[in-house]
């Protein structure tokens, strides 16, 4: 397959972006309807190419590495080139990204219909999709970082899409800043890699920024450096995947349009962190410390995010916390060394979570709200949505035979096996993951129950419009949802079955992923264990049962069952006060007040104090020539001279041979 064909998968949506933003939007604003078709056409090309790439990789090992263009050359061992690296991992994720994106775009045609920024929406979506594709196929870590920032940027634009909503703008800014804090670590990690390149012998013949090379690099550096770099990369992944303590941006990001949440904030961009860690898994796993931290962060966040999901009333925020929690399962799996199950869960999660979001969008399309307290009883009005939501929810809970069951089961199985011959740490990990299953089942059923069961509690019926305003969504929305529903049902068993099923080999996805040459010794999937499968199903059913029990009793949402636990309820309802900590205490109080005051101290107190005092003394001199009486300029020159003297002293002290 020629290198141009591979690039086509990235260039096709990019072309759509260029056409929509530079031609359609400014010049054909009357014909906005054409924008989604342009994007869908571009994505169809991508789909064809990515299917070809996938099959090619599956059967012949794939095109591997292709370099197109040398971007920057730092030295012989650190070259940044724009290239593609198609291996089992990237070709699989690529296919998922393209498929989900395509379906979401079709859905968006219905959902965004009549919006004032119709073209702008699809332009940004095109930018996002092409950046995401670029991220997946990148062969160079700096190239990946560039796309990493670009998806962050398009996520910023999409969250803040409705510019007239202050909350959307604030959420967009928050997402941007917090993910960038994580990216600091990522960038520092990359810079340490570059630093390493200067120490390499010329004969080493590696490029420290080339992803396949990085995977074999760990042996050449000290354990300390490996840990620093991997922790840096991990912090980038945690920021993007909204893991504790960077998770606060994702729930707020729900201010964006729902299809955006489905594509960007559940299926693809937030999964990029998991993708990155798997991509560099051989390198990451060289540091035991980092692996422990990944597993710990994952297991902790899985429960932590799930608890916050228990009490939120916004349906999309429930799903957002659920996304954080499910991504945490993938992190935990990676931390335990099971990158195959992590990718498997990433795929199934992409399908069922995208479907959940699209369903919530469909509900919103009907009720014009996301507040579950104003819903209820919708199954009567929206049977399709209800059915699809039920399927995807049960998949999220992890009930057989839906896809979520198979992938979550593999993660639980890995944790289980580690626990069997592990220490307290591994036991804790498994316990946390198990608790997470119960909590997931509880909040998922709470969501279903509040939304679709019981009586309708919203206003729309009341104000006379009656059934007119609550209706099933149009076909253009239902059709992609149904396709995702099919994937939700089938993707689990067919892609990674625990036994041979006719022509489909057992664990073929896992074996396929592991066959990438960067994983020198692949991960062999654990044998299916009936015990663990039953255990995780029972855990899910327990959570489900509790939720059914409670919400049958108070099915009109009068009282939340958890409100009886006062202290705990307050804590989780206020999101553990982390938003307060970040925004009010750290940014406002410490950074903007304290530190600025320290820096401005001289200006505020010294100069003002002088000026004030002098004001009395020289009133009679008056007028223009007294310009300098407030001493401002003099103070500047004073600081300049003082700075010079201090600089000189530093020079004198630290210059070798002069006494330092």
């Amino acid at each position: 397959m020629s290198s141009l064909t591979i690039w086509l998968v990235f260039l096709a949506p990019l072309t759509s972006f260029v056409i929509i933003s530079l031609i359609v939007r400014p010049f054909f604003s009357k014909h906005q309807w054409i924008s989604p078709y342009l994007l869908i056409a571009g994505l169809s090309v991508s789909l064809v190419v990515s299917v070809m790439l996938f099959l090619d990789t599956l059967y012949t090992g794939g095109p591997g590495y292709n370099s197109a263009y040398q971007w920057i050359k730092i030295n012989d061992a650190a070259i940044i080139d724009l290239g593609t690296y198609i291996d089992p991992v990237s070709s699989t994720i690529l296919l998922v990204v393209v498929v989900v994106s395509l379906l979401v775009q079709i859905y968006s045609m219905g959902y965004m219909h009549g919006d004032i920024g119709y073209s702008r929406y699809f332009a940004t979506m095109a930018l996002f999709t092409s950046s995401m594709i670029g991220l997946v196929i990148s062969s160079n870590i700096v190239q990946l970082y560039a796309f990493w920032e670009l998806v962050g940027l398009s996520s910023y634009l999409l969250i803040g899409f409705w510019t007239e909503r202050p909350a959307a703008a604030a959420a967009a800014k928050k997402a941007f800043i917090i993910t960038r804090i994580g990216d600091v670590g990522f960038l520092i990690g990359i810079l340490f890699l570059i630093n390493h390149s200067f120490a390499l012998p010329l004969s080493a013949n590696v490029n420290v920024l080339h992803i396949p090379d990085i995977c074999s690099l760990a042996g050449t550096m000290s354990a300390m450096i490996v840990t620093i770099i991997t922790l840096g990369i991990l912090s980038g992944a945690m920021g993007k995947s909204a893991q504790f303590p960077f998770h606060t941006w994702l729930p707020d990001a729900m201010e964006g349009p729902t299809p955006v949440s489905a594509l960007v904030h559940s299926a693809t961009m937030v999964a990029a962190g998991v993708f990155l860690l798997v991509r560099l898994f051989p390198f990451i796993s060289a540091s035991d410390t980092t692996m422990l931290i990944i597993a710990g962060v994952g297991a902790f966040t899985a429960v932590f995010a799930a608890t916050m999901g228990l009490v939120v009333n916004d349906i999309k925020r429930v799903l957002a916390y659920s996304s954080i929690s499910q991504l945490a399962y993938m992190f935990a799996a990676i931390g335990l060394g099971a990158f195959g199950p992590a990718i498997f869960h990433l795929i199934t999660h992409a399908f069922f979570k995208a479907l959940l979001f699209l369903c919530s969008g469909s509900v919103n399309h009907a009720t014009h709200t996301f507040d579950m307290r104003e819903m209820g009883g919708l199954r009567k009005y929206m049977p399709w949505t209800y059915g699809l939501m039920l399927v995807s929810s049960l998949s999220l809970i992890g009930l057989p035979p839906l896809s979520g069951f198979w992938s979550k089961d593999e993660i639980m199985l890995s944790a289980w096996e580690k626990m069997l011959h592990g220490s307290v740490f591994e036991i804790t990990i498994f316990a946390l993951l198990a608790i997470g299953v119960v909590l997931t089942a509880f909040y998922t059923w709470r969501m279903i129950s509040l939304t679709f069961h019981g009586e309708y509690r919203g206003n729309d019926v009341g104000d006379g419009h009656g059934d007119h305003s609550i209706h099933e969504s149009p076909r253009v929305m239902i059709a992609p949802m149904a396709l995702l529903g099919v994937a939700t049902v089938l993707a689990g068993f067919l892609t990674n079955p625990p036994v041979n099923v006719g022509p489909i080999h057992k664990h073929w996805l896992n074996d396929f992923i592991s066959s990438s040459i960067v994983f020198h010794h692949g991960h062999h999937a654990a044998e299916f264990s009936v015990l663990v499968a039953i255990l995780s199903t029972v855990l899910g059913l327990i959570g489900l049962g509790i939720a059914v029990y409670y919400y049958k009793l108070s099915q009109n949402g009068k009282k939340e069952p958890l409100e009886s636990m006062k202290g705990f309820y307050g804590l989780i309802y206020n999101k553990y006060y982390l938003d307060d900590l970040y925004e009010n205490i750290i940014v406002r109080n410490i950074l903007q007040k304290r530190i600025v005051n320290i820096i401005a101290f001289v200006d505020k107190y010294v100069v003002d104090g002088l000026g004030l005092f002098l004001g009395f003394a020289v009133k009679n001199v008056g007028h223009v020539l007294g310009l300098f009486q407030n001493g401002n300029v003099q103070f500047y020159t004073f600081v300049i001279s003082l700075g010079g003297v201090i600089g000189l002293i530093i020079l004198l002290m630290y210059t070798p041979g002069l006494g330092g």
Partner: protein
Amino acid sequence: MMSLETILGLAAMLFVIGIFGVLTKKNIIAVFMSLELMFNSVNLTFVGLSYFVMPVNLVTDLSTAMTGHVFAIFVIAVAAAEVAVGLGIVFALYRVNGSIELSSDIGRAT
């Protein structure tokens, strides 16, 4: 008594007196006067160095003995321009504002 050290020392003292004036004078004219003093001390340094210090290329190029003097001439010319510009701006300010008392109306650092 007239040695390089004394001349440079004298120049250094004048320079520091100039800095002191710039730092402490409230009147903009006095500040400009102090600046002129600094430029003069620099000139004195140049001329003194030019008198006492061996030019690096004297053997091949006799004119290097004059470098310090040339520098001083340029400093004088530039200083003249500087003071002209400074006083020009002061006069403009005076005209724009009349005799209204000026406070520093440009913001603080915060």
